[in-house]
């Protein structure tokens, strides 16, 4: 992956005025590079959508700066947005217009030629499995089909950057997985940089190269998903013990490992490096187990941990 910087956000801040001013985004800075998929995570109200809206200019920042391709977004808005597309589950398209009419309008807004519009429209509608809906009004589409149409709208412009706000929220798992694969392909083939928000942590871990975790408008972590997960959680090893339950507990206490006992199932919490030692100690103690399940820390563990910390604070 090259390190060409396509988006640079510096000290971005959004304060909603009112009797009690509300700080929605608090002095955040980050960069997005060509071909990078950057996840934006956080609980509801953390500032993800506010950030995306500012990156699209549909919400004015209180202070800070946004540079796309080295150009100041506030003074080159229109020029910059020719290379930036957006799709969200939470917006729609004119529902009395057909799929084709909507895509034609947006294709024209992004300056695509008639030939480009026709070719790309068909190719992307086919790719997302809604080519048969081309002549249908948006009002006739299901929520999942509208979400896919929004993705067609975003990607058929061949943008250099795509901002995706919960792109798979209303999709069935199989279609969501197709969307994830599509996003990865687009990045690989065209070097598209993507800013990605989702509540599906497994999906974020699969898609994103790097994750920003927002809490109360601030970035509290910026790292690759695996490291974030490991930063707050250890592995869990679950054993279904056939013979030697008391010896299993004794091993756990000897190794000073936290454990939970549920009938004949014992769950240990430990670092990945300790797993071999544990299994060896159990074998030496003559413990027989019929099932073993090793669970690595996930981004969801991190999310739950940080969300809990956020609520407590």
């Amino acid at each position: 992956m090259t390190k060409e910087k396509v988006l640079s956000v510096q000290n971005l801040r959004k304060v909603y005025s009112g009797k009690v001013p509300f700080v929605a985004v608090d002095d955040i800075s980050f960069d997005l590079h060509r071909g990078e998929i950057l996840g934006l995570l956080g609980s509801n109200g953390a500032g993800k959508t506010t950030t995306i809206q500012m990156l699209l200019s549909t919400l004015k920042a209180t202070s800070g700066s946004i540079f796309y391709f080295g150009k100041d977004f506030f003074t080159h808005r229109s020029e910059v947005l020719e290379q930036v597309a957006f799709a969200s589950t939470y917006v729609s398209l004119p529902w009395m217009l057909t799929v084709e009419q909507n895509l034609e309008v947006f294709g024209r807004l992004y300056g695509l030629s008639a030939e480009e519009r026709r070719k790309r429209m068909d190719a992307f509608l086919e790719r997302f499995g809604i080519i048969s809906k081309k002549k249908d009004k948006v009002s006739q589409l299901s929520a999942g089909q509208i979400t896919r149409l929004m993705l067609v709208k975003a990607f058929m412009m061949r943008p250099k950057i795509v901002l995706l706000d919960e792109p798979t929220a209303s999709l069935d798992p199989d279609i969501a997985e197709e969307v994830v694969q599509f996003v990865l392909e687009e990045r690989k083939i065209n070097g598209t940089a993507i800013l990605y928000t989702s509540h599906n942590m497994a999906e974020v871990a699969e898609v994103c190269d790097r994750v920003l975790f927002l809490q109360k408008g601030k970035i509290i972590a910026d790292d690759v998903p695996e490291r974030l997960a490991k930063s707050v959680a250890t592995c869990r090893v679950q054993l279904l013990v056939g013979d030697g339950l008391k010896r299993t507990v004794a091993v756990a206490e000897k190794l000073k490992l936290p454990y939970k006992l549920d009938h004949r199932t014992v769950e240990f919490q430990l670092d990945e490096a300790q797993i071999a030692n544990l299994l060896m100690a159990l074998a030496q103690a003559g413990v027989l187990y019929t099932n073993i399940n090793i669970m690595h820390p996930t981004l969801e563990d991190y999310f739950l941990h940080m969300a809990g910390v956020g609520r407590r604070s």
Partner: protein
Amino acid sequence: MNWGRIWAVFLRYYYFFAKPDSMADLFFWPALDIFLWGMTSVWIQHTEQEFPKLAIAILTGLVFWQIVWRSNYEIAVNMLQEFWNRNLVNLFSTPLKLSEWIVAMMLYGIFKIIVTIVFGAFVVWGLYSLNIFNMGWSFLPFCVSLILSGWLIGFLSAAIMVNYGQRLQILAWMTAYIFAPFSAIFYPMSALPSWGQLIAKALPMTYIFEGMRLVLYEKTFSMEMLLTSLGLNIFYLALMMLFFRWMFEKSREKGLARLE
């Protein structure tokens, strides 16, 4: 200013053109107005012989009020369409500039006004055997001025709605009628009480309708009336554009997404 993007926005509204809602706005309501008021005028003409030109004056007022109403409506309701369709963020997250959206609205408004006028004139001719274009081509400059009046009212409503949202969407239909009693559409300005005349004098529509009645009754084209109306229209329209842009920017401070 990018004409490709302006054409894209024009098409976005044009594709809605053949839908039942749009058809009702274009044909049903103007025809209903013309029929109801036309019948009333015919009845007045038959009972009050001393006012032989009253019928055509009222009908002309009706048809030409449609120009104000229509050009106002196109701006205000087309903006509401974006709220209702949750498409505002989509639209303004593209390279589209606000000025381009405004120009597209105006062009689309002109297109629909032409359709409405032609249709209205045919209905009047068919129902009452009256040719509202009898006043000759002198009505054209007044039409241009009426379109400007409609736009300034439309931008006034749109400016308020873009900042305060859908809770004030009634303004799209109401604002023009706030000005109607003072615009001398069916009666001369002199019929108004003195405080009403003060308001009427400040409105460009007053000079247009007064001027059109002069053409009808006295076959006189008043350049003074036309220029006064055009001057006031251009002045107010420039103010309203600035007001609209200012309110749009204020709305952006709160976020366009909240309007959907």
